Every structure is written in C-alpha cells, then in structure tokens.
C-alpha cells in the first residue's frame, strides 16, 4: 500500500506541490485506499473465522480446544498486543507533531511489543504441538492454526513494516507525507489488533 | 444478409463534422424486426421441443408425484416468463421501428418520469410475488417426509450407485414381508427397484465425491454428499423404467454414471424381493458356469460380493466351506464394488452405462406398456437376450470401455487403490466361464 497517490484532478499548478493533496472527499487517496483494504480484510478474516467456527467441534477422538488452551497466557499476550495499539497511537501523535525522534521510539516500541506477541504465538504453537496438536491432527487443529496463523502473519508483516518505517524515517526516505504514512500504518496495526480481540473472544474465551 | 448490405453506405465520411455518422444511420428497417423475431423463434422452439420428442430424461413429462408438483409449479412460471418476454420485445420492437432516425429534430432531453419508473418497479415486483408464494409452498411440500412408506439407502461412488434396502423394525423390507426367506438387507446397484404407489424415501450419501441422484420424471435432483445423509422422495403410480443420470460433476467418468429407477406393481415387487432373498445356488458340477464360479472366486470376489457364495476349493469336508466376503476397500479407493448377487436380474451394468440386453430385447422391456412391464423386467437377462459383445469387451478391458483411474501405479495418492475396475488380464476362456457363471446370477 506504499504507493503515493497521484494528485487528484484539480490540475492547477498549485497542486504540483505534493504535500497539498486535495480530493473530492477531502480524504487522502492513501487513507481511503487503506480503509478499502481493511474492509476487504474483514471478509478474509470473516471467512477464516467461519471455517473455524464450523470445525471447532470436529475432532472426534483427538484434542479439542478446551483441553489445550492456556487462557492466562493468551490473555497476557493479548494484553501486550493491546498495549502496542496504545504505543502506536503515541507514535501517530508524535508524527503529527513532527517529532521524528519520538515517532521512531514509539514505532520501535510498537514493533517490539508486536514481536513479543508473535514470540508468544510461536511459544503457544510449539506447546500445542508438543502436547499432540499438529496442523493435520484434526479439522479443529487445521482451522485453528490457519486462522491464528493468518493473524500472526498479519502481525509479522506489520512489524516488518514498522521497523522499516523507523529505518526510512531515520534515513529520511519516506515518500510523501510522513505523518500520514505513520497514520496509515497505524490504521493497519489497529485493525490487526481488533481482529485479534475478535479471535481471542471467539476462539479462546467463548467455551466450545 | 446480402439483401440488406447494399443499404450500408461507406462507413463514414471523413469530414470534421461532429455528426459524421448520419450516413450510417440509414438502415433497412426490416433488420430491426429480426431481434424479436429470433427471440420468438427460440421461445417457440423451446415450447415445441418440450413435447416433440420422447427423451427418457425429459423434465417436462412428470410421472411421479413430486415431479408432478414441480411441473405444476413450473409451467405457469415459464408461461409468465414467456409473456413478459413477448411484451418486452414487443415494446422494444415498437420503439426501434417508431423512433429510428428519420431526420426528426433533437428529442427532449428528459431524464425520465418518476411515475413510469415506479410503475416498472411495481409490475415485476407483483409478478414475482405471485410466483414466490406458490414456490415457498411447493418447497415445503417437497421436503415433507412424514408419510414415508419405504426407506432405501442410496450410496454414490465413482462411477455407479449402490442401493441397500433396510430391514425395518417389524421385519419387512419396504413394507413387504419376504415370503420364504428371512428378511436381510438387499444390496444392488445401478437399477433401483421400487414398488408402485409407494412413498419411497431415498436416504443418500456418498463414499468419495459429491454425486447427485436425479430421475427427472420422478423428482428433482438431490446431491449425495460424503459425510452427510440427504434424502429424496420418489414415488410413481406407473410401472416402467425411469432413466436418470448423475448430475453433480464427479470426476473422470461422470458422463458414464447413470441410473434407472424401476417401478413395479406391488405383486411384482414382492416377486423381485423374494428372488433377491433366495439363497445362493452353485452352478452344476462340471458345467462351464461351475468353472466360472472358481474363476469368479479367484478373479472377482476380492471386490465383488455375491451373497452366499462359499469357497469349497481345497477342502474335502463339505461343512468346511468358507463364506466368500469381499474386501473392496483394500483395492478400490471408494471402498466398494457392485454387489453381483443378482446381476442378471438388472438389465444394465457398469454404472447403468451399458446394456445387458441386446437392442431388441432392450426395446421390449424399456418400451413395454405399464401392464406388461413388470413381467418382462422380472424375466431378467436370458442367454438369447444377453448383450454379450459389450459384456465381453468389459471383462476384457474395462478401463478401455469406460474411463477409470484403474492403473494403480498412477495412483500414489490413493495408496495404490484404483478408482473403478482395473484391467484384469483375463484369458478368453476365463471370460467365457465368467459369462456363463454370471448368466445364472438372477
């Protein structure tokens, strides 16, 4: 999504200045596109969650969800991910204040918290695997790993984007509006967090 | 077309006039009429064809209760659709004829009249509501299974159907008590035999992929999905053969997965039932058929079950016979092969794809009047009527006759199990023996 928009068609010399975007709606193209993308992502996770909900009870003689969950641990890691949303907000507000230093700091903290979350997921998966729940063990396990795995990949991609953004801000190579770019990454990050809350509630908390 | 082309002038004159295409607008008006004309022709063709031929799977010739319900619902819909079509095309034709460019002045630049627009929303809405109400009623009526009189299990697999008749709690099968033998489940394939005037409930599933059971003249189709049990009501008053075909794409030989439903008068059905339950009799010693029995045991019985067949080879003690039980799931991926106990009581084989009857004998049975149909069907396949050519070809090399994944080496993903019947490398003598043996299976 890191494309920079064409200046919308108001076509006067004033708009050659890339900062001054002007569009029919007042929203920047990038932001609108990010919203659209997230809308599409909703259906992606919708499909995955539906698959999981259909198959969560299908493990006739094998491990079921309620046997392997470690709710306290997952709660802790969910909390960490939520905290990262907070630090992301701090990063965005620093970016709006044109405070590059703190933007970088908070982006880095967000990325680290995200990395901790993913590390927690790796830990959790390893535990489940050792306890006998492989990817192909049952329909429940396949759909569980697919759903949470997709989410994990989203977080991982987000972290790589965040760290790269830190690097790009450091080297002053962010094309276009810096604050807006940080904000866009923030949108994505919040979305991934919200999806996790949904997954945590549906998959872990609501008893099967 | 040639008659019209002379009206086409040079495409356009290359001036820079904004209206350069006036030249092409002079078109023969007769051409306009073609569009509705073609539409009308197509409509007429459909109407015509519905009663023009006697296709065995014609959906417009219901012969069963549910098919009739569907038919009673669908023809008014077709009619309505036809009338709407004619009206729309009529309006279009009038428009095209009346308003083509005859040099009139620029029309008013109107964006429409709300009244007309709402009217044109209301009209289809009313028509569709009129269709929707009976539709819902029929959907519910078709799903009603309260008054079932007979349950038969149907199992689809690549590329044939298996039927098994359950023994009810009261010891009857399909409401009929066997005369002589004790009731036991009956397993057949290809041709489903049901009693006339009986509300039969098929309970279907599948062993591999999704198949669909469809006897157009008796009812609509129903997918038979592995892991699920779906049901379908069949019933008819008229004895006869009703043809059908698997309609959910099920792989390589989808086109060769057919089935028939045989409707028999209750008496005839009783006869059929008793015959199916008759104990197995071995062919007479020393006949070709007896040799065929041994060949069958060595070559076929691993997959194909013949109920009551015992293997007495290699033992002198007559009481030490072993019941021959087939284990198709070790050789065939779907886990089943047709039960051949009464093969010659049916008149098709290999997924009802090929006829066991010669063309003449086939016509005798298939085109029989309802009154005589039962007798002719129950006569089974006699030696004179046997379609030996195709049966022989089949035994010689079945995958060549009907495409199947029969080469175990290709099928690493199925643990070497074939899908469909493999090539068995039978000798011509063995084939002779088998045919003699199979001829007695009825």
């Amino acid at each position, binding site marked *: 999504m890191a494309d920079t*928009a*064409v200046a919308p068609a108001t076509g006067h010399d004033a708009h050659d200045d890339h900062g001054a975007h002007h569009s029919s709606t007042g929203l920047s193209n990038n932001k609108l596109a990010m919203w659209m993308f997230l809308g599409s992502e909703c259906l992606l996770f919708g499909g995955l969650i539906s*698959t999981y909900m259909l198959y969560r009870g299908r493990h006739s003689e094998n491990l079921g969800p309620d046997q392997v969950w470690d709710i306290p641990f997952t709660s802790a890691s969910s909390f960490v991910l939520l905290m990262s949303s907070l630090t992301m907000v701090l990063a965005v507000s620093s970016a709006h204040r044109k405070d590059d230093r703190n933007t970088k700091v908070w982006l880095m903290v967000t990325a680290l918290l995200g990395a901790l979350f993913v590390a927690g997921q790796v830990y959790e998966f390893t535990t489940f695997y050792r306890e006998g729940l492989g990817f192909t063990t049952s329909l429940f396990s396949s759909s569980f790993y697919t759903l949470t795995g997709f989410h994990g990949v989203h977080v991982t991609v987000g972290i790589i984007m965040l760290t790269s953004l830190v690097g790009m801000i450091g080297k002053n190579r962010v094309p276009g509006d810096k604050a807006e770019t940080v904000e866009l990454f923030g949108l994505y990050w919040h979305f991934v967090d919200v999806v996790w809350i949904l997954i945590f509630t549906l998959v872990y908390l609501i008893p099967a | 077309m040639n008659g019209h082309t002379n009206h086409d002038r040079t495409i356009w004159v290359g001036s820079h006039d904004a209206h350069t295409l006036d030249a092409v607008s002079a078109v023969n008006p007769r051409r306009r009429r073609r569009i509705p004309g073609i539409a009308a022709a197509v409509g007429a063709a*459909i109407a015509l064809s519905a009663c023009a*031929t006697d296709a065995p799977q014609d959906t417009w010739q219901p012969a069963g209760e549910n098919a009739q319900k569907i038919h009673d619902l669908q023809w008014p819909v077709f009619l309505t659709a036809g009338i709407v079509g004619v009206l729309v095309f009529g309006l279009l034709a009038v428009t095209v004829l009346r308003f083509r460019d005859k040099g009139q002045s620029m029309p008013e630049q109107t964006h429409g009249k709300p009244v007309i627009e709402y009217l044109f929303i209301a009209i289809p809405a009313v028509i569709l509501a009129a269709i929707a109400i009976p539709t819902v009623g029929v959907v519910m009526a078709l799903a009603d299974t309260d008054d079932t009189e007979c349950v038969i299990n149907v199992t689809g697999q690549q590329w044939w159907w298996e039927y098994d008749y359950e023994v009810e709690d009261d010891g009857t099968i399909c409401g009929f008590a066997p005369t002589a033998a004790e009731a036991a489940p009956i397993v057949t394939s290809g041709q489903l035999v049901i009693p006339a005037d009986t509300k039969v409930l098929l309970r279907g599933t599948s062993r591999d992929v999704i198949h669909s059971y469809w006897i157009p003249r008796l009812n609509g189709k129903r997918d038979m999905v592995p892991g*699920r049990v779906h049901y379908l009501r069949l019933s008819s008053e008229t004895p006869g053969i009703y043809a059908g075909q698997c309609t959910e794409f099920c792989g390589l030989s989808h086109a060769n997965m057919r089935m028939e439903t045989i409707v028999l008068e209750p008496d005839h059905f009783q006869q059929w039932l008793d015959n199916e339950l008759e104990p197995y009799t071995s062919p007479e010693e020393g006949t070709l058929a007896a040799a065929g029995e041994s060949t069958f045991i060595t070559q076929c019985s691993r997959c194909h079950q013949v109920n009551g067949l015992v293997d007495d080879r290699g033992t002198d003690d007559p009481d030490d016979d072993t019941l021959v039980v087939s284990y198709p799931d070790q050789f065939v991926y779907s886990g089943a092969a047709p039960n051949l106990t009464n093969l010659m009581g049916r008149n098709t084989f290999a997924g009802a794809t090929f006829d066991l009857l010669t063309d003449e004998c086939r016509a005798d049975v298939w085109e029989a009047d309802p009154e005589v149909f039962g007798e002719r069907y129950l006569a089974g396949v006699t030696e004179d009527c046997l379609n030996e050519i195709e049966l022989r070809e089949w035994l010689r090399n079945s995958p060549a006759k009907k495409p199947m*994944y029969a080469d175990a080496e290709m099928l690493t993903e199925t643990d070497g199990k074939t899908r469909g019947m493999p090539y068995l490398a039978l000798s011509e003598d063995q084939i002779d023996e088998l045919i003699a043996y199979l001829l007695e299976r009825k």
Partner: protein
Amino acid sequence: MAIIERPTDTPAVVSPDAAPAVATPATSYGVFRRPVETTGWKSWLFTIDHKKLGIMYGVVAMAFFVIGGIEALLIRLQLAGPDGTVLSADAYNQMFTMHATTMVFLFVMPMAAAFANYMVPLQIGARDVAFPRINAFGFWTFLFGGLFLNTSWILGGAADGGWFMYAPNSSVAFSPTNGVDFWALGLQITGIASLTGAINLIVTVINMRAPGMSLMKVPIFTWMIMVVQFLLLFAIPVITVALFLLMFQRSFDATFFSVEAGADPLLWQHLFWIFGHPEVYIIVLPAFGIVSEVLPVFSKKPLFGYPLVVFSGAAIGFVGWGVWAHHMFASGLGPISVAVFSVATMAIAIPTGVKIINWVMTMWGGKLKFTVPMLYAVGVIVQFTIGGLSGVTHSVAPSDTQQTDTYYIVAHFHYVIFGGAVLGLFSGLYYWWPKMFGKMLNERMGRWNFWLTIIGMNLTFGPMHVLGLQGQPRRMYVWTENRAGDGFFNIGFWNLIASIGAFVLALGVLLFFVNIYVSHRKGTQKAPLDPWDARSLEWITTSPPKEHNFDRTPTVGHLDEFFHRKYEDRGEGDHHDYHQVATAEEIIAEEEAKGDSHIHLPSPSYWPILLSLALPIMAYGVIYNIWLIVGGAALALLSMYGWGMEPHTAPDDDYDPPAAGTELEVAAHG
C-alpha cells in the same frame, strides 16, 4: 514522462513537426535510472499510464478470449454427435474447466478492467488513476497469473474439476495431477490483481472526480464500474480463503475437505458461491454500464431514470450477496434456507428488470441511429432479457432441482454472460475504438460481425435450453443415443445445431479481428474527434487522448457535460429547441488554450512488473520446490521496498534527456 511542459500557445491537436529535443544527460544513473521511454517495448513494460495499461488489458483479454473460444469449439466438436471421440474424458474435463475459468477470469473480467482502466479516469476528468503503479502491478499480476494458469496444459494437465471445483473432488486423491494446484494458485494471483484494481478504482472514482462532478453526475459506466469494484473488494477475500484452504489441503495435508476427518464438503460450496454469485454481477455490470452509455448517445436522449439505474445497479450489488445459495438448491440445504434464497433470488430480478425497462425507455421517443455499437447494445437488451427470464424460471427452487446442472443452466448463463456481458463489451469496443486508437472500425464489417455473432450465439445457446429441459446434464464428455429420445428434434439434433452455431459464432468473432486489420490498414483516415455525437467527458480530449488526458481539468456542471457544452436549448417552457453552439473541435481547442502549462504525472517504474513476476515464481514454488518460494519472496520483498522508497514522480534529473520544457506530446498510436 513525468513532466509535461505544454506550450500553451500551440494547440496540441495539431501535432508539431518538431522532433523532441535531444540533450546530453549531465549525469547518468546507468542501471539505476528510472525507465523513461515513451516509445518502444520498454514504454509498455514499465508504463504506469492507465491508457496503455487499459489497452494491454484489452489485448491480453482478447488473446485469452481466443484461447477460451478454441476450448469451447473443441467441446462443441466433441458433443456434435453421440459418443464423441475428439477428446478423451480426461481432456474434456480439463477443457470445460479451463474454458470457464479462462472466459470468466481471463477474458470478461480483464476486458471490463480494460475499459475501466481506460475510461474511468477520462470519464471523471482525472489525469490517471489514484495509484498508477498499483494499476501497473494489477495488470502484470493478471497477465502472469493467467499465463501461470495456462502453463498447466504443458505441465501434466490442467485442472479437471470444473470452474466451481467442488470439494472433495478437488482433493489430490481425486485429481492427482497438478492441475488443481495451478488453478488454485493461478486464481489466487489473478485475485490479487482484481483486489488491487478494485481499491485503486474505488479511490479514483471517489476522490478524483473533476470539480463539479457530484456522485449523481458521474457517468453511468463509471458508476457501474464502481459498484463492481466494491463487489470485487468484498468477494475476492472470500475466494482467497477458500483457495487457501484448498491449497493447504492439497499441498500441506490439511483436512478441510476430507470427509474421513469429519469435514463438511458444503463448506467449499458456501465459500465458493459467496464469491461466485457476486462474481456474476462483477461480470455483467460493466457491460450494463457500457450499454447505458451507448444507448443515450445513439438515441440522442439522456439515460432514462439515471438515478434509478444507478440505484438498481447498487441494489443488484447488495442483493447479489444474499442469493449465493441458489447455486445450491440441490445440495441438501434445509427447506427453510431453500425457500429464503429462492425468494431473495426472485427479488434480484426487480432491479435487473428496472435496467432493461429503462434502456427501452431511453430509446423511446429518441432519434435512434443504428450504428454497430448501438446494434450490440440493443442485442444486449434482447439477449439479456432472454437470459434473465430463464433465470427467473430457475429462481423457483423446485423447478431448479430439475434444471440445475443441465444444459438449461448452460443456456441461461451463456445468454447472460455472452448475451449480456460479451455483447456489451463488443458494443464498448466499437463505441470507444475511435477514442482509444483514433481510427473508426469499419461499420459494414461491424454489421457482419454483429449479425454473425447474434445468429451464432442463438444457434449455439438457444438449443441448449431444449437440451437441458430434455434432461441432458452438463459436464458430460459424451452423450448417448440411448437417452436422446425419438424423432427428428431429439437431443442429437439440438446438439448438432449447437455445434454448428458455435462455429458461426467463432466466425463472427473472427470478423472482429479482421475488422481491426481492415480499419487500421495504411491509408484509412483518422477518426473525427466526436464521431458519435457523444455526451460524456472522455470525448473532451483528443483521440487517442494525450498522456496527461486533459490539458485543463474540465469543470462539470451537468451529467452529460459534453452534450451540454455542444448544445443549447433555445425553446421556452415545454417547447424544446436544441441548437448546436459548439463543435467538439472548438470545445477541445478552448480547453487546449486554457490548459495547464506544467503537469506532473507519475513516472514509469520497474517495480510493479518485478513484484508481479515474483508471484508466479512463488506459486511454482508451492507446486515444485520450496526454494522457489524463498526466491520469489525475496524478489517480492525487494520490489516492495524499492517501490515503497521510490518517489512517485521522479526528480527531473532522473530523465534522459531531462525534461527541459522543450517536449511536446506525441500521440502514442496512430
């Protein structure tokens, strides 16, 4: 080129003789230079110009149309007589699977994308789409995805499970070749293309409209394209999930569709049709848009009930989400679901009917000129109405259990897709050809083209209604005389007619290509600026448009802006008297004169095509070797970062020669 210095005193319609100035670069970046070519193959490979991309979409889609057509002809040859031997069962199954996949994903959708790409920015008065590089990425991804899909033919056989690819028939045990893997991954790739395209066009339409163009003044084609993009936006992720499950099932031993593990095969059907039904509207709505553009132009009247047509398009889009299970009436859903979906399906006929009636009413009272695009548009009304009415007959669920999976359905959707979408696209081709290429397509040839197509399609698909009602199921590699019925007009007769019709149709389509050749021979004249007396914004520029589309961004006051600039109503009260006050040339010359002098356009880029290239590499990796995935992923990462850090408009010194204000726009085609 990124920066266009347009000398304001010279009208650009008149191409200047002056060759572009050649300057020696002060500095050269060598391999690091951004691509700047405006001619030659590089200008196409690295272009981000929506018009070039649109043309490429069209050309590639046409190529796939031919491939899909050949597949169709082979199918019809096989079925011309009983027990056909042209194709083996296996080949036939691959053929119909790939025919459908090719036509839907590689022809109709990209062909609509071609028009959307080319016309939407022009229709809303924009200089390009919102994200030109993403646009380029979308095209290349589609192309590579399509090629990837078709390489399965030479790599062990194509997919053989039908375009709906029902589980569990798509599992490795039932489809042991790699065909289904190619299919799943290929669709995944083209899905990415569609998704990026959708986001791009939505943002473009919402955000980049010319001043004064409120949403209710947006040309109807653009409107329909926007509805389609929303459908894509929400439908693609659903099929993505399904395809991922399928891929995990086939490549990584997951059990999503293994019944032994307790799976429910209906999961696939639901996921597929939740995507698949909106897909139907994705296919047909662009054509509706085209027809709604063409009819007013040749009726010399505005579109009847424009707001209603817009809303009914949107309504079709919305309701289209609630009817997916009508593809599953025989699948064993409960009677309640069946009844609900049956009624919902009927409801969708209402907005569809609204469109048809509005089209007829647009023509009513007009001044109709039957040019080739108009013929095609009227053809759409007729053929689509037939398809729509046959659709109503099987929205009645009980009736559908007799018709589904028979040739009746084949007939129905070919009337809808060929009669609706494809005829509509041809209408668009004839209508916009002079705009896109500056040459008119030959009208006489076009008429032959049209009539052969119409006759061919009715001969081909008309008899299929009969075949279906007589009980011939779909997807059978042979039919047999045993089940053909008696009499002359039996199944055999209609099959033969359909096969003959297919070749007539093929001939008709062939004529289109001949027409292109004939119309572009040397010596054919340039098309006039406004050959059709058109009404919308895309005609207020040269043909073909300049790279920057408009010299000055037009200001819009009316729905049919161009018409209102050309004509003035001098009547009073109810009396109307339209006078032409300006010609297209005058209007364009005026825009020219007041044009912007310094226009920044985004620069071409290597990254989109590189990123697209990474996708099929990864896909081959999934099938053959994990290291290819790693390599592809590395290329993808590299391209994404290169892309992310590249300014969308290159600094002036990136050019060779640098833009020094001496360059003039030279038409790319002609």
